[in-house]
């Protein structure tokens, strides 16, 4: 518990310090990182807790963004109001899609969700009356708070930092609720889960829907931040990036989702000197992480923490807290 509060405080302190000290360009990257963090915290429900491999996460982010964009630009809704149908509609879509799709497992589920993401792109690019096709939707209005428009990178960062904090705390509560535990039980052993009275299908579908709802919130943030969306913003490459962020940070951990999202947003910038060969570097890095630190950065940190207090009774397992802050 104390560790969680500490992590939250550290996150807010670092975020606020950065928000007043860095350049406009870095602020923009931070905004993209926080938006990705929302999506990746969501993906963690499906992949990290319930063990459902999803390569279609960007489609749900896109669905949320498109619903908000269409309602605000074509129906004249206020952006705040439009977030509601964007989030609920995406969650509902995930339930409808999840019921048949989540009968699949492992590689089959990965391929099916990938297909879902590709289909979403095709629909978004071709339903021109509604989505503007490949030209996308421009002039999406920004959010405002108490009569002040949240314009510019710095004010938006304050908003998105707060959104990430609230959603991370919420995710942490869900994780430790019986719903979160049921998801992990299903991940660990589906048969044993059904033998302990857990409704496996309902648990999987709700984890999938929850992850889609977080993705939709990320999509709403993205649309109101950039003011312009097109099908390319939500293609399957983004889904793979989200999954990479979660694995690099540490799957099954909320802190890992945030750290991974931040790291993989900034890494391409830091390594810009590599040019085209960045992809090769990225591939090798992912390989190395999967082999040498399969529990990601957070897993590595909690291993240090454990070896630092070796005198304590030997706990061969992770103490649970460190691994899942």
């Amino acid at each position: 518990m104390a560790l969680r509060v500490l992590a939250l405080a550290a996150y807010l302190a670092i975020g606020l310090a950065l928000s007043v000290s860095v350049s406009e360009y870095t602020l923009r990257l931070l905004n993209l990182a926080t938006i990705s963090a929302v999506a990746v915290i969501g993906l963690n429900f499906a992949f990290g807790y319930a063990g459902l491999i999803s390569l279609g996460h960007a489609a749900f982010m896109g669905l949320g963004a498109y619903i908000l964009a269409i309602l605000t630009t074509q129906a004249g809704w206020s952006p705040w109001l439009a977030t509601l149908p964007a989030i609920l509609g995406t969650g509902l879509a995930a339930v409808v899609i999840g019921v048949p799709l989540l009968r699949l497992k492992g590689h089959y589920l990965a391929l099916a969700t990938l297909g879902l993401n590709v289909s979403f792109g095709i629909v978004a690019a071709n339903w021109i009356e509604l989505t503007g096709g490949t030209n996308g939707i421009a002039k999406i209005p920004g959010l405002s708070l108490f009569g002040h428009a949240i314009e510019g990178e710095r004010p938006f960062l304050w908003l998105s930092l707060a959104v990430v904090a609230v959603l991370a705390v919420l995710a942490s509560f869900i994780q430790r609720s019986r719903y979160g535990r049921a998801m992990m039980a299903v991940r660990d052993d589906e048969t044993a889960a059904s033998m302990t009275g857990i409704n496996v299908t309902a648990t999987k579908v709700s984890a999938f829907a929850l992850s889609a709802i977080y993705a939709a919130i990320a999509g709403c943030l993205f649309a109101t931040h950039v003011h312009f969306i097109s099908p390319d913003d939500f293609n399957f490459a983004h889904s793979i990036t989200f999954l990479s962020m979660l694995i690099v940070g540490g799957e099954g951990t909320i802190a890992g989702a945030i750290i991974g999202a931040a790291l993989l947003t900034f890494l391409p910038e830091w390594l810009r000197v590599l040019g085209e060969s960045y992809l090769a570097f990225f591939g090798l890095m992912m390989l190395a992480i999967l082999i040498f630190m399969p529990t990601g950065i957070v897993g590595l940190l909690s291993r240090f923490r454990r070896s630092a207090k070796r005198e304590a009774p030997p706990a061969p397992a992770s103490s649970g807290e460190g691994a899942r802050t």
Partner: protein
Amino acid sequence: MLRIEDLTVAYGDIVALHGVSLEVAAGETVALIGANGAGKTTLLQTVSGLNKLRSGRMEFGGASLAPLSSADRVRAGIAQAPEGRRIFPGLSVEENLVVATSSWRRLGKSYADDLAQVFDLFPRLKERRRQLGWSLSGGEQQMLAIGRALMSRPKLLLLDEPSLGLAPRLAEEVYDRVGRIRETGLTILVVEQNTVLALAVANRGYVLETGRVVLAGSADELRRSERVREAYLGR
């Protein structure tokens, strides 16, 4: 309480159970003994809804089990500590126990008493409540599997080879606890290769050989039977 009639179960062409009938009355402890591959685990898995039956009937509390999913059967009151324990490796001991309350838990219902009872039965689990499942020893995992089954507030407890892979002293300890659970009045069906331990705790027993019930009787009768002595007790 549990009535199985003429049950036949097959995996593809391989018939694992040939027309097995057995009955467990409320409050009694019944042992199902037999060698490896006799079909004991298949029978328990079928009761829990993991195998399709080719023919036959299963009734629990007078109602057919056929329409119920595995999770529904837990809700109806059948809990199993399965073969190989199958505890959740990524959950802590306490989470492993609490997750099994989802069949009956509604808002405002507390599991604190259930947890206290399990910890009272297995104090070692209390010591290790924060440890992750995978880090437990075999004996502790078996205790956790039984505790987890109890957390779902069952009317019928199914135990699949609780002594498997345990040192003799630990197996005896586990069976000592099964005896204590029996004294609370819970109905138990235990499947076991270790005939001595199983018949010591049971009122009645069935002997299963290559998918057929070949012998049935009280625990005393089975212990005295020539067939059981030769085949399973080694005397």
